[in-house]
């Protein structure tokens, strides 16, 4: 990034540094060198000392995805390997998907939420996952085969520059990803653009409840692990309003402190962030 950005606030990472940290971390998780996946069980800690956005349980059996809002049936419905335990909620539960709808998942990872959405929208619907980490998209594509899914597709893309045409999507979902973006207002503007009039936004993400210490904001690992990049409820609301969304609701889940606390061995991250359900709608007449 340029000099003026760095001198403006030396403690913050540049957008490029932030993207790189996020990509590298999620590539490591996708390939199993830093993993919560049951397929590539690793001896090391999933979250280690960088923590965040990720359950420290090593395999899916010991991980409790129901704490995030998934039912046992959800977990059983998707072939193993798609649920990496990287979410902080269940955006599908917020979205009330209908048969035949088109769903776009921002930061789809290994595809767990996409496969669940695919069951809801059925054969007449379609689900597209966008992720900027090649290793994750490859893993998701392998999971398409495992799940025999015909209505789910993945593509490499950036959530600030969605490769989806205007007004082609009924529902935008995302799980613990938007906080990782160096340009969140742009993510919401682009989500708004791709939604059809009346289309819905249903996101699970962390929100900031207390200021993060300067040293954490400058730490790429803290940004990549969904803590240092998080915004407050007020900031998020302002971004969503500015993008044009109506009926905006941001509902922090106090009970999420229990699993947020497990994201890091040494720090209690629940002092800084909490998981929230974030919903909004594009006006019918937009």
């Amino acid at each position, binding site marked *: 990034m340029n000099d003026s950005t760095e001198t403006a606030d030396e403690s913050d990472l540049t957008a490029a540094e932030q993207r790189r940290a996020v990509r590298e971390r999620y590539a490591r998780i996708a390939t199993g060198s830093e993993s919560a996946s049951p397929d590539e069980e690793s001896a090391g800690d999933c979250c280690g000392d960088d923590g965040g956005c990720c359950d420290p349980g090593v395999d899916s059996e010991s991980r409790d995805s129901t704490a995030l809002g998934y039912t046992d049936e959800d977990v059983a419905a998707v072939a193993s390997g798609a649920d990496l335990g990287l979410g902080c909620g269940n955006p599908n539960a917020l979205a009330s998907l209908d048969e035949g709808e088109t769903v776009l998942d921002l930061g789809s990872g290994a595809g767990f939420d996409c496969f669940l959405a695919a069951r809801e929208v059925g054969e007449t619907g379609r689900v597209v996952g966008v992720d900027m980490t*090649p290793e994750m998209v490859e893993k998701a594509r392998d999971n398409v085969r495992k799940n025999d899914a015909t209505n789910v597709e993945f593509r490499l893309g950036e959530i600030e520059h969605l490769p*989806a045409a205007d007004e082609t999507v009924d529902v935008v979902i995302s799980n613990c990803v938007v906080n990782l973006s160096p340009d969140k207002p742009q993510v919401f503007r682009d989500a708004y653009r791709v939604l059809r009039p009346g289309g819905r936004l249903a996101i699970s993400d962390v929100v900031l409840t207390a200021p993060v210490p300067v040293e954490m904001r400058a730490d790429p690992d803290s940004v990549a692990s969904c803590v240092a990049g998080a915004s407050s409820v007020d900031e998020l609301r302002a971004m969503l309003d500015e993008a044009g969304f109506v009926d905006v609701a941001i509902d922090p889940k106090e009970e999420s402190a229990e699993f947020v606390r497990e994201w890091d061995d040494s720090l209690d991250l629940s002092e800084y962030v909490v998981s929230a359900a974030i919903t909004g709608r594009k006006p019918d007449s937009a």
Partner: protein
Amino acid sequence: MKESLMDILCDPLDKSDLELEVTDRDGDEIITGRLVGTVTGEEYPIEDGIPNLLPPDMRDDE
């Protein structure tokens, strides 16, 4: 990627249409090929069935 999903795709740079050039396909499924921005002229590869629609400056640092 499925050819039938072309209608919801666009050029990530300027959101204009993309033109599909197929090298290898399996029915509706495009295995290898490329997508070309009709306005930007930017080329986005499709490899192993996955379209790479990252903005060009981000593809470079893969």
